[in-house]
């Protein structure tokens, strides 16, 4: 009797969910990370709804869980998302496994030209294989890692005098990593406005991708390359070159000398917390957050300035940003493509920028006066010129996790030597590529 009841309940449940599914008509679900730009997109998309009558539903997942959740969803062929603003690194896997709809035909039919978008963003967010004219996403959000700093502290006359006396140059946003270290050490454990403060908040997160996104900036600066540019997957001597070792060492030194105590598992939100609570003079974070910081009641407005990643021997910034793609498993691909068509229009892209999104459309970026339009426009333009991205291979998750472990073990847990860490990384990555068939046994 009771089993029959429960069977009935199960059947009823199934029926209800099925009916519920049928009942959805003109509605699209867009999946992205839960952060400021997502809220801006919600506002912007009201225009789309007004023009087409298609309702927008959103699924925003916080960054630390975003990759796992969305990749899980794609792997289960879930129908949750019609549109997905996925990370640039997922392109390889999504293209190979057929999660995304290939957009070349759609672009051609609707006159959307990739030439209208910043080349670095097209290569980073849309193409797979990298650099080939196979498009799997429309560049949606340009982003890179950069720094914010406490302009009001830098402007204090007594600090300026002391700094100048010590280092015979002005206290100003650093242009090289050596300068950065000097400034950070200057502020470390100093009392400003009655509270003890620290040099900088850096990325050190262990779990998803935090510390890699941070260390890449110093690694790139001293010569780290992912592989031999002439021979794919040939990593020995490029990943663990003497320059790369130096870059890793520089990041560890900065972590040891100039970060707040306990800043051992920090990514975007922790860095923001540290900066907004007045603990640090400088903050490493994605440019996507700069509009919100600018408007913050505690540290916004005139109190905050911005600068791009400092230079080592070279100058590169770790690429962030995403492209918007149509999920192959969606039942509403046509409506989703309509959204893309609407989003690609220059007028919409301008509104996107005005609302706090970071457009990749050259028409807006190259327009005169753009660099002055907001306090962070200049750092955005500067940074996008020097971006470099992590692997976007289908096996990128394993590559990323291997790097997370090796780097965190060395930088935060202090295990071993930088050269050993990078040698170990070459070994890990070789294993991944071998398993993947990219490297012969």
């Amino acid at each position, binding site marked *: 009797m*009771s*089993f029959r009841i429960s069977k009935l309940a199960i059947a009823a449940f199934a029926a209800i969910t099925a009916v519920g599914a049928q009942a959805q008509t003109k509605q699209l679900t867009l999946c992205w990370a839960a952060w400021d730009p997502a809220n801006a997109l919600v506002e912007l998309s009201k225009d789309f709804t007004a023009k087409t009558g298609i309702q927008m539903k959103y699924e925003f997942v916080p960054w630390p869980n975003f990759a796992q959740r969305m990749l899980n969803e794609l792997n289960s062929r879930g129908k949750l998302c019609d549109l997905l603003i996925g990370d640039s690194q997922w392109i390889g896997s999504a293209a190979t496994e057929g999660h995304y709809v290939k957009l070349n035909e759609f672009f051609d039919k609707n006159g959307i030209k990739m030439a209208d978008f910043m080349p670095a963003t097209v290569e980073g967010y849309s193409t797979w294989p990298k650099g080939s004219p196979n498009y799997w996403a429309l560049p949606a959000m340009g982003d890179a890692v950069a720094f914010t700093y406490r302009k009001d502290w830098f402007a204090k006359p007594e600090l300026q005098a002391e700094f100048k006396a010590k280092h015979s140059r002005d206290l100003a946003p650093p242009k090289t990593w050596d300068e950065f270290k000097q400034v950070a050490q200057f502020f470390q454990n100093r009392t400003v406005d009655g509270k003890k403060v620290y040099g900088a908040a850096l990325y050190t997160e*262990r779990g998803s991708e935090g510390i890699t996104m941070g260390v890449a900036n110093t690694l790139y600066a001293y010569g780290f390359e992912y592989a031999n540019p002439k021979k794919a997957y040939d990593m020995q001597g490029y990943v663990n070159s003497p320059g790369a070792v130096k870059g890793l060492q520089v990041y560890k030194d900065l972590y040891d000398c100039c970060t707040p*105590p306990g*800043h*051992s*598992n920090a990514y975007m939100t922790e860095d923001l917390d540290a900066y907004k609570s007045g603990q640090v003079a400088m903050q490493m974070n994605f440019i996507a957050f700069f509009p919100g910081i600018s408007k913050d009641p505690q540290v916004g407005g005139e109190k905050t300035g911005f600068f791009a990643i400092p230079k080592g021997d070279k100058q590169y910034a770790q690429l962030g940003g995403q492209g918007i793609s149509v999920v192959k498993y969606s039942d509403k691909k046509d409506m989703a493509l309509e959204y893309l068509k609407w989003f690609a229009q220059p007028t919409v892209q301008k509104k996107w920028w005005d609302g706090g999104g970071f457009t990749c459309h050259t028409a807006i970026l190259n327009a005169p006066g753009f660099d002055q339009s907001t306090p962070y426009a200049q750092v955005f333009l500067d940074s996008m010129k020097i971006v470099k991205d992590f692997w976007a291979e289908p096996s990128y*998750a394993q590559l990323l996790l291997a790097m997370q472990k090796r780097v*965190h073990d060395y930088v*935060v847990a202090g295990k071993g030597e930088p050269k050993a860490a990078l040698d170990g990384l070459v070994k890990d990555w070789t294993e991944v590529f071998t398993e993947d068939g990219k490297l012969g046994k």
Partner: protein
Amino acid sequence: MAAVPVVPGVREAGGAILSRAARSGGQGLSDRALAWCFVGPTLVLLLAFNIFPLLWTVFLSFTNYRANRPNAELAWLGISNYRRVLGDEAMWEHMRATAHFLCWSIALQLLLGFALALMLNRRFRTHSFWSTAILLPMMLAPAVVGTFWKYFFEPQYGIFNRFVELFGGPGNLTMLGDTTLSPWAIVLVDTWMWTPYVMLLLLAGLRSIPAYLYEAAEIDRASEWTKFWRITLPMVMPFIILALLFRTIENFKMFDLVDQLTNGGPGSVTELASIALKREAFEKWRTGYASAFAIILFVAIYGLSLITVRFLDRVKQR
């Protein structure tokens, strides 16, 4: 199935038949059939959701299956996954982290729980209110506990350091950032959360000790220490072992709390076996490899439980 209709009219239908039916347990269905009907659905569900997946996991552990590449060719790898898991030195680090966590959290919980139980057993006024109040930490979702303790341990705006300072300790601990301190951080939080559990169990044990034993000891003029050592402790021992058993099983499986609190960091010093397993299975998507890991863990837990239960039986017989 168990479709015996509860129709009142049947009762009148045949008095004589019924007395015989009563002995065989009902209209048409013997006791035995009814037993299987009752137990059946449970067993079926358990078979479908426990045995079948377990077998599937065993199968997967011999292959190179990856859940994110379902269309790739499946290769039979024999026991190579097991060999790789056991040969991976990172694996042993994880087992060491798990062992450290297990040993210290359980030891502390047993000590504290026993002390609290002894105190509560003295039944001071308002003791029942306080015994319920102490239970609160254990009622929270472990994941949420992990998140908030991350907040408390933060050296700048968290209250833990201020609290330690209040009691005369150093005020600059980085509980989660330091490789030597973070294993103790997870022990501390787990102890905070589960000591009430042990306390409850041991209190029941204390209360089950018959009074006449103490009266006899008093007549013999035994000291407090002797009473404790020769009456209290042995009588409570089965309960201690039960607490040990349950806490060991739970903490071996522990995932939620540590995932939120340290996510395995710094480095991998708090990467417990279950967190490492999650990484392999759901982040790296090495499903075959992770399955081998899972089987090894299961065997370990099962083995430990069996040993503990045997020990428990022996102690009960004493």
